Structures are given as C-alpha cells and as structure tokens.
C-alpha cells in the first residue's frame, strides 16, 4: 500500500511541482474561476472566519487571491507581461506559506460564499485546488495526512482491524437484541445480495458504537434488508479535504468494488457530511465509470421510512427544544435540507430553526478536515463564534446534526462558548423516539441511546 505522505520539497522544486499540479487540474471551470473575480467585496460577510475576526486577510476573495496570484503569473496575459500590475507572483517559499495558511487554516471549503458571489464563483473548487497543489509538495497538515495514510493502509481512517470491527458488531448485535427485546436479531455481515449496505464512521466503531446501534435500530424497526461489509465500511474519505485525488480514487474504488462484489444495491452513508458528498456526488469522477450501487444518506433513508409509515416515532420522548445544524457538505454541497427537518418534526416536540439555516447555514468551522489540523485549533474555535451565536439565539437545549465532524466541533464549541447544549446525531433522536414492536415479542420501548459523554456545559 502506498504511503501518501510526501516529503516537503525545497523552494524551486516545490514551486514547480505545485504549478505542475495546477496545470494538471486546470479545467475550464477552474480557469474561469481564476479570471472572473472583480474584487467587489460582496463575499466578505458570508464567511464565518471573516465575521468572527474582522481580519481583511480571511475574506473569501483574499484567500482565493493567494492562488490567483500564482495562476496569473503563468496563465494571465497581464500577469506574464506586468506581474506587479495584477499582483501576479512566482510560487516561492513565502507565497506557498501564504497559500498553506489560507487553504488549510482559514477556509473550510463550506461554499457559503459561492451563494453570495455575484459572479457565481466556486471558492470550494479554488481552495481544494490549492490544497491539492500543497499536498503534492508535502505541505499538508500532518494530522490530515496521517488520516489519509491510515485509510489507505488499513481500509479505514482509524486503523481498526477486521477482527476488532467484527467484535464490535457482535457486541452491538447483543445490544440491539437487548434493547428491542428480540433475541433473534442479527446484524447481517458480508451477506451477498444485501439491499442496503451501511457505511459507518470509524469514530462510531471505535468510540461511539451506540451511534450505529441507533442506526441499526432504525433499520430493524423499518424491517429493512440491510447489512455490513467487514472489508469496506468506512464512509469517510479525508483525501477530499487534503485534495489528494489519487488517494480519493484508491479509497473510493476499493469501497465500491467491495460493494459490487457483495451485490449490494444501495450504499447507505452514515451521518457523515463529506463522506456523503464523496459517494453521492463526486465518486464517479474518481471511479471512472458509473457506480455499481445507488448512494443514499441515512438521513434520506430515515425520512423515507417515516414518510412511508415504516417507523413509528413518539416525539414526546424528546421534549427538549432542538435546533438543527446543516452540515455544509450535506446541505450546500448535497441538497439534503428538507429530510432532517421532516424527521425532527416527527421525532421531537419543539424544533427551532437557526437564522439563517438550510443551504445558507453557517459552517461550524470544523469542516474541510479542520478537526484533523490541531495547529489551527485556536483559529477554528474563534471562527465558530458565528455558529455559537446562532445556536444561543435559538434557546435550544439540543443541537442535532448529521455529521461527525460537526458533532465533534459543536461539542467543543459548546464548551468553549459555554452554550450548555447537548450535541446529538439525528439518529440518536430518532432512536429515542422509536416505538418498536419486536417480532414475536410484546411491544418494547426504544431504549434511549443518548450519550452523556458529549454533554457540554
């Protein structure tokens, strides 16, 4: 298995190598995005980094400009003739440092500014291109790179062995049997012809197994034909965040090939923002052919079950006020907006929206792999101020979301800004509200699976 960590290149080599990556990634869309910014400033206050700090050097346009300066030196007529006139520059050490700082440290690629740009520019595309260039020359936060390396080496980003995975699944099987009162309940593992193949987040397997228990309970209650694959179950793909397309391709291909080998019909992505975006929208570019499976998020599936009456929910079991944080990769880059609201309106007593919300929701500042970059921790928490204020204004006691990065970030944000809210996955609220009638047994109440570990005061 290839190790992805590149050795940082020296000045001249690094600049040339970075520009070679830019050339290899130069599509028509990227080129027009490089040329079309008029520096109008209308994107400024769409960015959570800028709103929290007021720093002129974290506005979306300024950040994108750090890549444009390099681009213009090679591709823009004026940039080649009179570089100083348009601030075009060579990719020297100082410029690459600046690019590193903005691409990894001051942007989560949340694409909120895209919706505010009068030209319709795609800042996510620009920043990911910058990350690709930097990763190729070894200038990538080590934590982020290690996550990708571990995924490539072991098949999941936390290096969980197949044996440990199976053991955890068996434990969860017993837990589900106990909580639903059905001793015959089995978690189908490596079953050929599985209709819905669940993908999990390694964090769930390693630290929060009760989370995927909640999802399994949903499938059980809905009477779904579902299962797991012991060799391809990690929904994440942090190479999306590091911009490493070769690693993206390797991870996606292995996963999809395994799903095809099992004859699965649909891949169900756990509550993982970037994982959903990767498999639902961007995988085909790396896979190189049509996907052998359909892709759906757990959120979409659960909403469908509720709509079809396959899940019975009792909202009185979730009486506290709940607000919902839209993960950027699911809402703005994925179109999942109505489904979580539909679920919550059926699963909780008091649902409150943040302002703004949906596709205009602010990023929690933990996206784009930010949680795997401890060197930018202070900045990440500072940038979350806007989100903290949004949450506080709702008066909610629970923040539900549908992405593990968001969960971890919001939990830390709640502690940092003393919000006193619990941060939960959507599936936890669904599991709490489930009214389960086990096969061959008397009616059982869904046992609450809300964890206390993420209660922040």
């Amino acid at each position, binding site marked *: 298995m290839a190790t992805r960590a590149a050795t940082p290149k020296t000045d001249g080599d690094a600049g040339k190598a970075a520009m070679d990556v830019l050339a290899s990634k130069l599509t028509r869309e990227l080129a027009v995005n490089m040329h079309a910014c008029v520096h109008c*400033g*209308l994107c400024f206050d769409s960015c959570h980094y800028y709103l929290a700090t007021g720093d002129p050097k974290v506005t979306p346009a300024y950040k994108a400009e750090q890549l444009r300066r390099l681009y213009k030196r090679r591709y823009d007529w004026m940039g080649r003739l009179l570089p100083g006139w348009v601030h075009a520059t060579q990719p020297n050490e100082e410029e690459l440092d600046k690019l590193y700082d903005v691409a990894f440290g001051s942007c989560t690629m949340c694409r909120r500014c895209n919706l505010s740009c009068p030209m*319709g520019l795609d800042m996510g595309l620009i920043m990911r291109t910058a990350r690709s260039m930097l990763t190729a020359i070894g200038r990538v936060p080590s934590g982020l790179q290690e996550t990708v390396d571990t995924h490539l080496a072991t098949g999941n980003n936390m290096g969980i062995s197949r044996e440990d995975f199976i053991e955890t699944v068996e434990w969860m099987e017993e837990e589900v049997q106990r909580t639903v009162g059905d001793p015959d309940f089995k978690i189908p593992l490596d079953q050929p012809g599985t209709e819905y193949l669940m993908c999990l987040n390694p964090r769930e397997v390693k630290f929060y197994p009760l989370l995927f228990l909640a999802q399994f309970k949903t499938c059980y209650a809905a009477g779904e034909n579902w299962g797991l694959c012991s060799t391809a179950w990690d929904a994440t793909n942090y190479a999306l965040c590091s911009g490493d397309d070769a690693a993206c391709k390797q991870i996606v291909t292995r996963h999809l090939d395994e799903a095809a080998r099992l004859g699965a019909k649909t891949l169900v992505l756990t509550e993982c923002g970037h994982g959903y975006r990767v498999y639902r929208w961007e995988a085909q570019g790396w896979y190189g052919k049509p996907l052998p499976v359909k892709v759906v998020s757990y959120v979409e599936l659960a909403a469908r079950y509720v709509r079809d009456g396959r899940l019975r929910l009792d909202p009185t079991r979730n009486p506290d006020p709940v607000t919902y944080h839209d993960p950027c990769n699911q809402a703005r880059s994925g179109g999942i907006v109505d489904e979580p609201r539909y679920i919550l309106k059926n699963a909780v007593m008091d649902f409150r929206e943040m302002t703004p919300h949906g596709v205009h929701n602010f990023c929690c500042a933990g996206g784009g792999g930010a949680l795997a970059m401890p060197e930018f921790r202070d900045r990440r928490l500072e940038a979350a101020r806007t989100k903290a204020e949004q949450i506080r204004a709702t008066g909610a006691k629970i923040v539900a979301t549908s992405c593990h990065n968001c969960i971890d970030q919001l939990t830390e944000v709640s502690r940092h800004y003393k919000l006193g809210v619990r941060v939960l996955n959507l599936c936890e609220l669904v599991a709490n509200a489930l009214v389960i009638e086990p096969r061959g047994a008397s009616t059982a109440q869904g046992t609450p699976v809300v964890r206390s570990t993420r209660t922040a005061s």
Partner: protein
Amino acid sequence: MDDFVKLLENEVQIAALSLFALMYAARLLWLRSLPQPMEKMEPKGSARRGILLSFGSVLMPWSMESTRKHFSVYVEFALFHIAIAIAIGATFIHPYAKGALTDPVVYTFVAFLSIGTVVGVLRGVRRVSQPELRALSTPDDYFTITIITIYFPVAIWGLVSDSNWGLIAYFGLTTFLLIYVPWSKISHYLYMPFTRFYHGFLFGRRGVTVPKLRSATEG
C-alpha cells in the same frame, strides 16, 4: 481636424475593435481547449433550472444574501453598468446613427453618465478606504475604476460639446479601453457566463438552489 475625428470614429475604432475581438477569440479558444468533465451522478434537482436561476439572480437582488444585505452596492452596480453600456453604445451611435442622438436621448445619456461618474467616485473611495478591499486590490483595480470613472465625463463632453476636442478625447479613450480591456479585470464579463453556468449546474443538479425532483419527504 474633422478628418481626424472621422478617422478616429471609424477606422481607428474598427481596428481597435478587431484587436479586441481577436484577443477574446484567442481566450475563448484557449478555454475551449481545456478539459471539462461534468458531474454525471443521478441528479436530485434540475441543472437547467439551476442555470436559469443562476443567470437570473443577477436581476434578482433579493435572491442573494450579499445583495439583500448590501442593496445600495447592488444599485450602484446596476447604475454603473448602465452608464458603461451607454458610454460604449454611444460610440457606435455617434458615427453611424447620429440622427438618433436627439436632445432627449442625449440628456438621458448625460443623466446616466453623470450618475455613473458619482458611483465611480464612490466605488473608488470605497476601494481606497475599506481595509478589506485595500488588502485585495491590485494596481489594475485602482486604474480600472479611475479610468472608467474618467470615461463617463469624457463621454458627456464628447456627446454635448460642439468642439472636436470632446470627440477626440471620447473616441481616443474608447480606443485605449478597447485595447486595454482584454488585459484587465474589466474582461470579467467574458468569463461570467461560464461561472454562472457552472454555478447553476452544480447547485441546480444537486437540488440545492432549486426544488428537488424527488424529495424523500414527498410522495
């Protein structure tokens, strides 16, 4: 003097326009040579509706948070670009359809060009005074706003003055701009149809900015 004005209005303008068109053609051919893989996953929304909405949003300031919050900037944008269209349009009307430049038409043009001048000054002041814009601005940004802001009163001078000097300044500056524009940020309008297309395609297809074809919550 009259012959010089005629030369400037006709042959020189045509030559400058040809160069302008040639440069844009080269740029478009270069863009065409670049690869453009398009997303092929099963759509949730409609790319076509997304693209229509994306282009339409230019005329719908209420549809974007930025233009809702900064409505005055949107109004400035609209007035500034109307003034630009008039200043450029009049360089075609003057030599080839002078009869159309009746007093009411000229006064209307002058009104918009005057407003454009004021807006240009406001935009220039903002670029200099706002730290966020200053951090971002290049000499091209400052030069562009200055030259366009000067272009408006020069256009007024050319349109209302009896002296040939007004026309020489107007058409001389137009010639300069035709040559300079493809090199500068003013050429953003060449790229805007592309960026708006890709924006609409992405967000429309994924069901972000347009209603989804099939929502999990609907029948």
